[in-house]
C-alpha cells in the first residue's frame, strides 16, 4: 500500500491551492459540518440564483484529503442547477466506494476520479465525504436574512 497512491499530485495540488475557498460576498445557503473523530470542519456557502447554484465556497479546516475533496467538489458542482445537484449528489458516495457504475455516472464524476483512490484507504472515506455532507446540508439551509 503505497501512500503516494492516495497523495497523488492532483490531490496535493488541490490541498495546496484549494479552489473556491474564499468566503462568498453574498450567500443564500450555508452549513457547517464536523468530523467528530478529528475535529475537522467544513463550511459550505452557496449562492443560489433562480434554478442554479451560481457560486460555491467550501472552506475546509482539515486534512489533505478533506481539503482536496472540498476543493474538487466546489469546482465541479458550481453552476449546476439545484435540481441536477439534488438528483446526483446522493450517488457520489456509491460512485466513490463501489466498482460498478453506469456510463452516465462515470461521465458525471469523471473529473473527480482522483478521489476514488481513497478506496484503498477506507478509514479515510469520511475525510472525502465531509465536504459533501456539508453541501447537502447547505442546500437545505437557506440564510433568510442574507437572501
Amino acid at each position, binding site marked *: 500500500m503505497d*501512500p503516494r497512491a492516495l*497523495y497523488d499530485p492532483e490531490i*496535493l495540488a488541490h490541498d*495546496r491551492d484549494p479552489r473556491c475557498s474564499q468566503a462568498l460576498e453574498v450567500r443564500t445557503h450555508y452549513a457547517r459540518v464536523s468530523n467528530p473523530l478529528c475535529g*475537522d470542519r467544513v463550511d459550505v456557502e452557496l449562492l443560489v440564483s433562480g434554478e442554479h447554484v451560481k457560486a460555491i465556497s467550501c472552506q475546509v479546516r*482539515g*486534512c489533505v484529503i478533506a481539503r482536496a475533496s472540498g476543493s474538487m467538489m466546489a469546482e465541479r458542482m458550481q453552476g449546476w442547477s439545484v435540481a441536477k445537484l439534488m438528483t446526483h449528489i446522493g450517488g457520489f458516495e456509491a460512485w466513490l466506494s463501489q466498482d460498478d457504475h453506469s456510463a452516465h455516472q462515470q461521465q458525471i464524476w469523471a473529473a473527480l476520479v482522483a478521489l476514488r483512490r481513497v478506496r484503498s484507504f477506507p478509514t*479515510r472515506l469520511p475525510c472525502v465525504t465531509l465536504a459533501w455532507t456539508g453541501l447537502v446540508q447547505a442546500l437545505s439551509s437557506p440564510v433568510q436574512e442574507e437572501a
Partner: protein
Amino acid sequence: MRDAFPTLAQRVNGHSLVYLDSAGTALKPTGVLDVMHRAYTDECATIHRGLYSLSTRATARFEKAREKVAQLLRVSADEIIFTGGTTESLNAVAWGLGRQLLQDGDEVLVSELEHHSNLLPWQRLCVERRAILRVLPLRCDGHLALDTLDDYLSCRTRVVAISHLSNSLGSVTDIKYVANRAHAVGAVVVVDGAQAVPHMPTHMADLGADFYAFSGHKLYGPFGVGVLWGRAEYLKAMEPWRLGGGMVRSVSHSEGVIAAEVPHRFEAGTPNIAGVIGLGAAIDWLLAIGYAPIEAHEAELMSVTEGALGGIDGLSILGPGATRKGVLSLVMEDIHPHDAATILDSMGIAVRAGHHCAQPVMERLGILASLRVSLGIYNSQADIHRLVGGIQEIRSILGRGR
C-alpha cells in the same frame, strides 16, 4: 519480549508491525490468551450458581482474579468490583454515589486533562442535581495547575474526579496531593487510573484516593472487563447501578430487591467471566515482570523517542517533557495528524491520530488533533527508529518540502 505477543508476528501492509498505540489498547501476551481459552473450554460455566465441578472451578478462578487485583492495588479483595471497563466504573460512581452526595449548588471538580469518560458522567450529574462543575486548568506545559487547586475547592466540593495519567499527553498527576487537599474540604476523590496502571505501581495506600478505576485491556488483558476499587465505607453507601441476578439476598413480588453484600451487590448478571480470569492472568504476568523493570525500560525508550523526534524540523512534542509516562503527543507544522497516521500505517506503524477523547485538552492547546505515540512493554528502540524514519518521509510524500 516481542515473541510473547502473537499480534506482533504479522506483517501489516508489507512490513513487520510496529505497534505504538498501547494507550488505545495494549497487546495481549499468549499466556493471557491461553488462560482465556481455557475459561471458554475446560472451565466454561457460570459462577456462583452451579453446584457442579466446572462451575466450582470457574468460581474459584474468578474470585482468585479478584484477589490478584487486590494484590495489584494493595487493598482488600472485597473492595474490588468487576465492571465492563473504566468508563462503566466511573459512570457507576457518578450514578451510584454522586447522585446521593450532590445537592443544589454543590460542586464537582474535574480537571482539564480528563478523558471524556471522566467528564461526561459528572457533567450530566451536575445538570441533574443543579450542581456546579468546576474545571482545574491545564498549564501550557501539560501539567495541571495544582498550585491553584485550593482555589477550585470549597466547602461545597463533594467530588473531585481526576485522572492519574493523561491519555492525551502522558502527564502524571500527584494524586496524593490532590486527595489530601480534597479531603481537607470533605470531598470524595475518584481517580481514572486507566493509563497509569500499565506503567507504574498504583498502591491505594500511597495515593489516598477513595475510588480508582481501570480497564483490563490497557493492562495486557482482555477487552470488556474493568475494575472499580472503592473504600469500604463508600461502597456500603453506594447504590447498585444495575439490578438483576446474583446481587440479591431475597426477592418476592411484594418486597422487591434486597441487595447482597459488597462486592456482589454491584455485579448483577453474568459477568465477563473469561475476561475477569484473563485480567487475573495479565496481572500475574505483569507482577512477575515487576514494575521496576517496566518503568526503567519505558523511561529509557521514552527518552530515546523524545530525543529522536525532538530533532525533526517542524515537529513539536506536546506536554510534560521528561516527566511523561507512556504517552507522547506531537504535532507537525502544516501536516494533519490523520495524513501522518495514514502514511505511517502504510509502513506498518500503528499510531493514533485525533483528539483521543479529550477534546478540551486539544482546545486548551489550540490544536484540533495530535499524533499520539504510546509505548508498551514490547516496544524497542528498533520500533522508535522505524517511527522516526516514517515521520521523516511524511513531508516528502505530502509534497511539503522544507
